[in-house]
């Protein structure tokens, strides 16, 4: 039957793909997609525990806030990406290294 | 009053309830609803050409079938016959996905459309919220369509179409919010339940703010469906019919179908929210449901719903042939500088109205004042 551990597994898969994208890909948009996935994994966990363990709606609310914050974050991140593209004519992350020592 | 359609029929035909039976009823209901929707979509094309012809003193299609009623079937068959051309450098995967997304988006909203008390497929508690969410898929479909066809014009059309749809979604959502505020729940059943049969009990005349909300909703839904004054993305003259220039054959047909069904859905939702949905005046449906033929009540409610929806649809079509097309910056400034602020303050207005008048409509207040002044018993 559908149980908590299955959801944990699914959120882990999401988290893993998100991580792989963030670490492995060189284009900014890819990293942002990866980030979205990681956030979703966390939200899924919250809701799973809220459904199976606490039977209270706090988990739902927490996931709701995660979604809201993720949206705001995505907006700002994408604006940065575009401005980065306008400056450097590329979205390749390795160009983004002015902070090098 | 049963709470969903399969249970209604099971009681009607005195069958014992079981999972697969409900699934069966749902499937049949869904299939019928999809067909009805496609037929309505087709009829809409016919109606549009007929009405526009009538407005321009021409006759319009009358060759195929009586008074040209079957014209839409002819178009459909033609579409089937057309060759499916795919631009060379186009992104095959996205090119096919786009129309599907639009279609799925629209069909998903049909599930919640409140046709009548028991016949609506799904009485979701988050009904309105769900409709708004799913209809945003259409914008996505249009953008991908425009992008995938690998031509500057379609891309530009796609981006404009998408940005128009998503920006007009905001005033629509906020005006819906003010109705949700008033009816105290997002499910269509509670919204319709809070409205009466007669016009003065509808939400549109409930208070001035809901009236403004209706106007904003109507304009927003026009823009959302790329209709009439806002049909810039597939404007023939400038962008060579916008995002679906490269689409031929059935894909193009589905884009068009999706568009017309979306108008139908938006008018249906508008009718439910503002014009009292399937409420029949003078409590006729409750009376009929007590008689041996409960189905009659459903039929009466269906009648009420469809008349209201088609009235709005007629209005949409008429507007198409009266108002000139808006420029892009006018379109955008209308949305962000006029509709959204109005909708926001409208929302606050409804809230204040509810707090101040304790959810009474103007008519109720006048009646209450009248009774105070008069008898004051």
């Amino acid at each position, binding site marked *: *039957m559908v*149980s*908590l*551990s*299955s*959801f*944990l*597994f*699914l959120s882990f*898969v*999401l988290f*893993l*793909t998100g991580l*792989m994208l963030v670490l*492995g*890909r*060189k284009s*900014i*948009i*890819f990293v*942002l*997609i990866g980030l*979205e996935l990681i956030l979703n994994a966390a939200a*899924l966990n919250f*809701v799973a525990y*809220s*459904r*199976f*363990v606490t039977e209270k*709606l*706090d988990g*739902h*609310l927490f*996931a*709701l806030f995660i979604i809201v*914050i993720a949206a705001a*974050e995505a907006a*700002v991140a*994408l*604006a940065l990406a*575009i*401005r980065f*593209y306008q400056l450097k004519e590329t*979205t*390749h992350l390795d160009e983004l290294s002015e902070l090098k020592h | 009053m049963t709470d969903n359609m399969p249970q209604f029929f099971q009681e009607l035909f005195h069958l014992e309830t079981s*999972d697969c039976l409900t*699934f069966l009823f749902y499937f049949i209901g869904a299939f019928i609803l999809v067909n009805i929707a496609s037929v309505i979509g087709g009829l809409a094309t016919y109606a549009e050409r007929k009405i526009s012809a009538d407005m321009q003193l021409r006759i319009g299609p009358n060759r195929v079938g009586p008074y040209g009623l079957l014209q839409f079937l002819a178009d459909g068959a033609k579409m089937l016959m057309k060759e499916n051309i795919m631009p060379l450098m186009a992104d095959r995967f*996205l090119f096919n996905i786009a129309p599907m997304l639009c279609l799925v988006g629209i069909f998903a909203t049909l599930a919640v459309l409140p046709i009548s008390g028991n016949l609506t497929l799904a009485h979701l*508690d*988050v009904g309105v*919220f*769900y409709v708004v969410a*799913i209809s*945003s898929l259409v*914008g*996505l479909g249009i*953008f991908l369509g425009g*992008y995938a066809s690998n031509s500057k014009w379609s891309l530009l059309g796609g*981006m404009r179409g998408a940005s128009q749809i998503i920006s007009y979604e905001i005033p629509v959502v906020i005006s819906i919010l003010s109705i949700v505020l008033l009816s105290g729940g997002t*499910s269509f059943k509670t919204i319709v339940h809070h409205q009466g049969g007669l016009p003065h009990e509808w939400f549109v005349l409930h208070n001035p703010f809901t009236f403004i909300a209706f106007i904003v909703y109507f304009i927003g839904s026009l823009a959302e469906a790329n209709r009439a004054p806002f049909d810039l993305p597939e404007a023939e003259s400038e962008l060579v019919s916008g995002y679906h220039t490269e689409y031929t054959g059935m894909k193009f047909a589905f884009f068009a179908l999706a568009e017309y069904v979306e108008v139908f859905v938006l008018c249906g939702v508008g009718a439910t929210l503002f014009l009292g949905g399937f409420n029949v005046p003078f409590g006729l449906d409750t009376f009929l449901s007590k008689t041996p033929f409960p189905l009659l009540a459903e039929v009466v409610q269906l009648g009420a719903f469809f008349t209201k929806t088609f009235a709005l649809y007629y209005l949409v079509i008429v507007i198409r042939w009266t108002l000139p097309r808006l420029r892009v910056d006018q379109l955008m400034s209308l949305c962000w500088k006029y509709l959204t602020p109005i909708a926001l303050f409208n929302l606050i207005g409804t809230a204040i109205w509810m707090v101040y008048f304790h959810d009474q409509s103007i008519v109720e207040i006048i009646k209450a004042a009248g009774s105070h002044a008069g008898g004051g018993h």
Partner: protein
Amino acid sequence: MLVVAIEKERTFEKVAIVSFLTILFILSALLMLVSCLALLLTKNIMHACTFLLAALLGVAGLYLTLHADTLAVTQVLVYVGGVVILMLFAVVLTGGQDQESITKEKFPHLAPLFGSKSTFLKAFLVSMIFFVAAASLLRLGEKEIVHVVAVNYAPTIQSLGQLLMTDYLFAFELVSVLLLGALIGAALIARPMKK
């Protein structure tokens, strides 16, 4: 994997295996897994966005199975209707999909894990095995779940709204400030550059 997970839970009361819940769960889980995999393998960024869309729809379906209907709809409205479109806009505005998206040169310090496409696949499989081993080793799943009561589905929007307006009021107001900040920040950044 799926079999292992199902067999593990013990005290769940007898419910028909093939109910709508399981169908929905399987479909959305499948959709999500496939799209995640596709995301890992695709190079074309537009495809990546579509797969992200599919993954998010899958997650919405999962929310539904967890009786979180409001959350599912919000997910669809916000993510599918907003973030993905924004991503698409961003992709178009940052030079479309001809950008190079996979790292070419080997990663200097760490293991070759983040090399070419093939290594991705290997890395993915290795991590899956690692998870199962860790889960079974640390008995991650069972320990907490003592009792699982089949809770009937109930619409959550009213209770969520009540919770939001009373207990989480401060967060509710704070979020609007956050949104304001995001709006102004992003608008400022995205303002066209003056040559």
